C-alpha cells in the first residue's frame, strides 16, 4: 500500500509538470514551436525600369547567376571549394569574401560564393551538380545601363547598400522594405526616385525542419515591382550631343521651354555607371578619381562657371522693368567704362568701342560698356534680387538630390560679408553687369533662365520625370496633359512688361541674324529663326593692357565658351545652354555646337561635323 501511495504521489508530480508545460505555459511554447518551424524568406521586388521619353529603356534589370553554398552542411568544405575551382573561376579573394560573409548568415542558409557566373561556368557546374549537394546556382536581378556613360550624370546608378544607407533607411522607417535587396539608388534619378523605383518586397512563409531544409510553403506574398518611369530625356538628342562634344570637358542642357522638360543633360566626359553596380574595385575607382578630366564630376549641375555675357538679356529686361534704362536709352561706348569718381577703367571686349549703343544693339554686339553702366545704375542689391528671380544663385529644383546640384553664386552685399568678411564696394558691382566678378552659375541654371526668356517670363522647374507607368493609358500612350510640368511661384510674365521681353529677344535674335550679330556667321542661311547669346568667361584675368592670345596661354587658363539659345524664335521648342571649358570664344565655338544641336532637334540633321575649335583673340563677345 505504501508503494502504491508513493507511485500515486510521483504520478501527481508528473501531472503537475505536464499541466504546467501544456496548460499554463502553452502560449509561450506554442510561439516557440512556431518560431522553430516557420521562416520568413523575403523576396526583393524588381526595380522599376527607366525609359526615355520615347520609351527606349535606359536602365534595365538583367539576371545574373550566383553560386551559393551551404557551408555548415559540408564536412569537407576545403575539399569541395578546391573541386569547385575546377569548374568556376574562383579566386582567393572570392573565398576570402565568402569566409567573411558566412558569419553573418543564419545556419543552413546558402552563402554567396561567386557572382556573375558565365554561361560556360553555369553549364560546367550543372553537369557536376550531383557532386555538390549543398551548392546551388540562383538568379539575381542586376541593374544594367545599356547606354553606358551617355546618361550617367542623369540616371546615376545603384550600388550595394552600405551602412550609411541602412542608417538612413532605418531613420525613414523603410529598412524592412530592403530585406533581401542588395542595391539602392546612390545618385541621380536612381536616387531621387528610389521610392518609386524600388517597389515593395514580398515574402514567402515556409516551414523548415530542424536542418533548415524547406519542407513546404505556407504562404506566398508576391513582391510588388517598382514603378517603371519615363524620363523627359530624349535619348537620341542626348547621344547626339555626347557625340558632338567628343569627350571634351563640357556641359550641355536642353529644356523644352513649354513645360520645363529636360530633353538632354550632358556632362562630358562621363563614366560607365555599370562599374558601380556590383561594387567597383578601388583600383578602377581611383583611376576615375585621378582622371584629370574629372569624369565623375557632374559639370551640368555642379559645375559653377562665370555666366559671362549670357546674362545680358536678363539684365536688360530687369533694368527696363526697374526703369534704369528705357528702350531708347543710349550709352556711348569709347571702348571702356570709367567708374565715376575713380580712375578705374573697365574695358570693353572691343578696344575701340561700339559707339552709340541702345539695348538691342547692346545685346546684338554684346557691348560690355552698356552693362557696366546698367550695373552701376542698378546697384548690386537690385541686380542681385532680379537675377534671383531668373534662378541665379538658387537651385533649379530639378528632380535630383540637392546634394548633386550647386547653387552657383549670385553675389550680394550679405554674401560678400559672409564669404570674405568685407563690405561690398562699387567696383564689385561693375563686372557683375557682364556676368563676371563673383558671379557663377551652373549650365542647368543657364538653361533654366533661357527657358524663362523663351517663355516671356513663364517659369517652369526643370524636371526629368515625364510619366509613371501607372499613368499609362490602355493604348500605351500617356494623357496629353502631363502633371509633371511644375511651375514655380515666381511668374515673371506679370512682373515684366511683354515689350521688354520682345526687346531682349530681338537683341538675341540679332546675335544670330543681325548684320553685326556675334554668331551671325554660324547661323547664316538657317531655315528656322533662333535667338541666342554667347559668353566668354575669363578664367585668367588680363593685366590692364595685355592682349589676350589663346595660343600664348596654357589650355587650363583659356576662357570658357558659353552659349545659350532657343528656337524656333516665334514658338520655341527647345532652350539650350552650353559651356565648353577652356573652349575659347563663346560665339564661335559654343554657337557652332548650339547650331548643330538645334539643327538636329528641329531639322533632324545629324551632321556632326563641328568646325575645329577656333582659338583666337578674345573676340566677338
Amino acid at each position, binding site marked *: 500500500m505504501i508503494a502504491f501511495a508513493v*507511485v500515486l504521489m510521483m504520478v501527481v*508530480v508528473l501531472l503537475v509538470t505536464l499541466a504546467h508545460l501544456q*496548460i499554463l*505555459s502553452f502560449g509561450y511554447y506554442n510561439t516557440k514551436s512556431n518560431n522553430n518551424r516557420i521562416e520568413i524568406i523575403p523576396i526583393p521586388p524588381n526595380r522599376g525600369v527607366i525609359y526615355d521619353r520615347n520609351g527606349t529603356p535606359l536602365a534595365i534589370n538583367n539576371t545574373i547567376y550566383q553560386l551559393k553554398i551551404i557551408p555548415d552542411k559540408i564536412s569537407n568544405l576545403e575539399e569541395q571549394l578546391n573541386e569547385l575551382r575546377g569548374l568556376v573561376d574562383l579566386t582567393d579573394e572570392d573565398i576570402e569574401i565568402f569566409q567573411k560573409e558566412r558569419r553573418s548568415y543564419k545556419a543552413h542558409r546558402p552563402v554567396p560564393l561567386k557572382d556573375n557566373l558565365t554561361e560556360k561556368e553555369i553549364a560546367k557546374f550543372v553537369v557536376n551538380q550531383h557532386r555538390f549537394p549543398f551548392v546551388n546556382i540562383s538568379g539575381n536581378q542586376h541593374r544594367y545601363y545599356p547606354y553606358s556613360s551617355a546618361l550617367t550624370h542623369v540616371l546615376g546608378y545603384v550600388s550595394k547598400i552600405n551602412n550609411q544607407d541602412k542608417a538612413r533607411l532605418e531613420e525613414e522607417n523603410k529598412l524592412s522594405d530592403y530585406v533581401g535587396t542588395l542595391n539602392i539608388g546612390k545618385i541621380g534619378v536612381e536616387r531621387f526616385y528610389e521610392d518609386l523605383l524600388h517597389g515593395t518586397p514580398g515574402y514567402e512563409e515556409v516551414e523548415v525542419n530542424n536542418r533548415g531544409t524547406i519542407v513546404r510553403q505556407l504562404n506566398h506574398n508576391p513582391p510588388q515591382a517598382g514603378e517603371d518611369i519615363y524620363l523627359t530625356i530624349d535619348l537620341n538628342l542626348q547621344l547626339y550631343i555626347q557625340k558632338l562634344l567628343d569627350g571634351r570637358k563640357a556641359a550641355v542642357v536642353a529644356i523644352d521651354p513649354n513645360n520645363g522638360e529636360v530633353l538632354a543633360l550632358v556632362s562630358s566626359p562621363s563614366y560607365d555607371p555599370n562599374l558601380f553596380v556590383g561594387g567597383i574595385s578601388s583600383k578602377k575607382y581611383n583611376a576615375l578619381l585621378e582622371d584629370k578630366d574629372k569624369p565623375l564630376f557632374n559639370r551640368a549641375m555642379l559645375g559653377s562657371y562665370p555666366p559671362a555675357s549670357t546674362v545680358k538679356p536678363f539684365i536688360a529686361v530687369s533694368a527696363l522693368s526697374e526703369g534704369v534704362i528705357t528702350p531708347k536709352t543710349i550709352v556711348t561706348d569709347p571702348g571702356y567704362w570709367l567708374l565715376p569718381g575713380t580712375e578705374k577703367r573697365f574695358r570693353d571686349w572691343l578696344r575701340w568701342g561700339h559707339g552709340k549703343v541702345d539695348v538691342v544693339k547692346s545685346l546684338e554686339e554684346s557691348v560690355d560698356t552698356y552693362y557696366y553702366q546698367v550695373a552701376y545704375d542698378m546697384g548690386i542689391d537690385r541686380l542681385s534680387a532680379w537675377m534671383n528671380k531668373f534662378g541665379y544663385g538658387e537651385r533649379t529644383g530639378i528632380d535630383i538630390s540637392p546634394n548633386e546640384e550647386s547653387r552657383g553664386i549670385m553675389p550680394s552685399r550679405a554674401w560678400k560679408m559672409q564669404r570674405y568678411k568685407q563690405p561690398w564696394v562699387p567696383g564689385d558691382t561693375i563686372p557683375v553687369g557682364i556676368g563676371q566678378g563673383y558671379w557663377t552659375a551652373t549650365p542647368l541654371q543657364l538653361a533654366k533662365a533661357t527657358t524663362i526668356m523663351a517663355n516671356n517670363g513663364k517659369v517652369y522647374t526643370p524636371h526629368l520625370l515625364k510619366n509613371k507607368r501607372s499613368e499609362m493609358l490602355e493604348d500605351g500612350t500617356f494623357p496629353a496633359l502631363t502633371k509633371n510640368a511644375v511651375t514655380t511661384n515666381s511668374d515673371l510674365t506679370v512682373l515684366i512688361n511683354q515689350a521688354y521681353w520682345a526687346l531682349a529677344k530681338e537683341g538675341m535674335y540679332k546675335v544670330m541674324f543681325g548684320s553685326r550679330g556675334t554668331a551671325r556667321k554660324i547661323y547664316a542661311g538657317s531655315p528656322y529663326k533662333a535667338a541666342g547669346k554667347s559668353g566668354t568667361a575669363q578664367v585668367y584675368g588680363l593685366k590692364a593692357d595685355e592682349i589676350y592670345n589663346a595660343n600664348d596661354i596654357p589650355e587650363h587658363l583659356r576662357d570658357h565658351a558659353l552659349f545659350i539659345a532657343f528656337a524656333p524664335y516665334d514658338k520655341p521648342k527647345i532652350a539650350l545652354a552650353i559651356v565648353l571649358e577652356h573652349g575659347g570664344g563663346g560665339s564661335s565655338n559654343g554657337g557652332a555646337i548650339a547650331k548643330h544641336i538645334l539643327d538636329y532637334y528641329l531639322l533632324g540633321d545629324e551632321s556632326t561635323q563641328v568646325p575645329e575649335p577656333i582659338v583666337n583673340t578674345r573676340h566677338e563677345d
Partner: protein
Amino acid sequence: MVSGKKDSLLMRLHIDPLFLFFILLLLGYSVYIMWSASGQNLPMTERKVGQVILGIFVMIVFAQFSPRFYEKWAPYLYIACIIVLVIVDVFGYTSKGAQRWLNLGFIRFQPSEIAKIAVPLMVAKFINREGCPPPLKTTVQTLAIIAVPTLLVAMQPDLGTAILIAMSGIFIIFLAGISWKFIAASVVAIGAFIPVMWFFLMHDYQRERVLTLFNPERDPLGKGYHILQSKTAIGSGGLWGKGWLAGTQSQLEFIPERHTDFIFSVIAEEFGFIGAIILLILFLCLISRGLIIASQAQTTFGRILAGGLTLVLFIYVFINIGMVSGILPVVGVPLPLISYGGSSLVVLMASFGIIMSIHTHRNMLSKNI
C-alpha cells in the same frame, strides 16, 4: 472462478487477462504513435510490430516457468550476467563512445538488459532465504549484490541503466520490509555518495547533462538544445494536442531521438495533455495490477519479486517522462513498452511473464515444491 473457454485457455497459458489487457493497450498505443514518431517510416513501424509480437511470445514463454524455477536459477543467471558484463567492459562493441554491446556475430546483444532481470531475481532469492524483514547484515550483503552489476554497467558508461538496475534491487529490499531507520540511513548515505559520484565516477558528458538539466538555457544550441526542443514540443501540444501526424516539432525533427527516448514528447505534442493523461492512466492500471499481483502472492519471494519488477517499471516511466519534460537529467532511459527498441521491450515482456507466472502458479505452489 474460471469461466469461459477463453479464460481457461489463458489460464492454461498462465496468462493474467487483466495484466495482458493493459499491456496490449499500451503496445497498441505504442504502434500507433510509432507511425507518427518515425515520420511515417513503414519499415521502422513494421519492426516495432515485430518487436511487439516477439515480446508477447517471450512473455508467454516466461509465464510458463514456475516461480520456484526462477528462484532456483537466479544465482546462475546473476553470475552469468556479471561475467558477460565484464566481457563487455573489456571487449565490448563501442557505439557512440559507450561500450554497451556485445557483438555475437549474428546479433548485437546488450548484457545490461539481462541485469535488469537477473538482479531483482538474485536479490529476491537472497533476501527470501535469509527471511523477512532482512537483518542489517543481509541488507548490506544485498547492497553488495546490487552494487557489482550496477558499477559494471555504470562503467560502460550507461548511467540510466545503472540507476535502473540499482533501483530494481533496492525496491526488493524495500518491499522485504526493512526498517524506516535503515531507509533514512540509506538516504543519508546516498546523499554522501553523490559528491563522490560527481567527482570520481561520472563522465564529463554526464556531468554536463546534469548541469544542463538545471539550466537548459546555459547551452541552448548544444547540450540544452534537446531538452528545450522537447519541452517546446510538450508545451505546444496544449490541452488537446496538434493531432496525430501533425506535431510540427516531431514531424520536422526538432525533437531529438523522437522515436526512442523522447517518444513521450511526440505523444504530448500530438495528443496534448489529454493524451498524456490517458497514457499515464494506462501505466497506472498496469502498475496497480502488478502491485495487486504482488500482494496476492503466496510466497515472500513472489511478493517481493513481483512488487520489485512492477515498481522498476514505474521508475522507468517516471524517469523517462521526468527527463523529457525537464525535471530530471537526460539519462537515456526509454519509455517502457512505447519507445522503439527490441532488447528493452523483450526484457520488459520477460519480466511481465515472470510476474504472471507468480500469479498463475500461486495455487500450484504446494504441489510443485
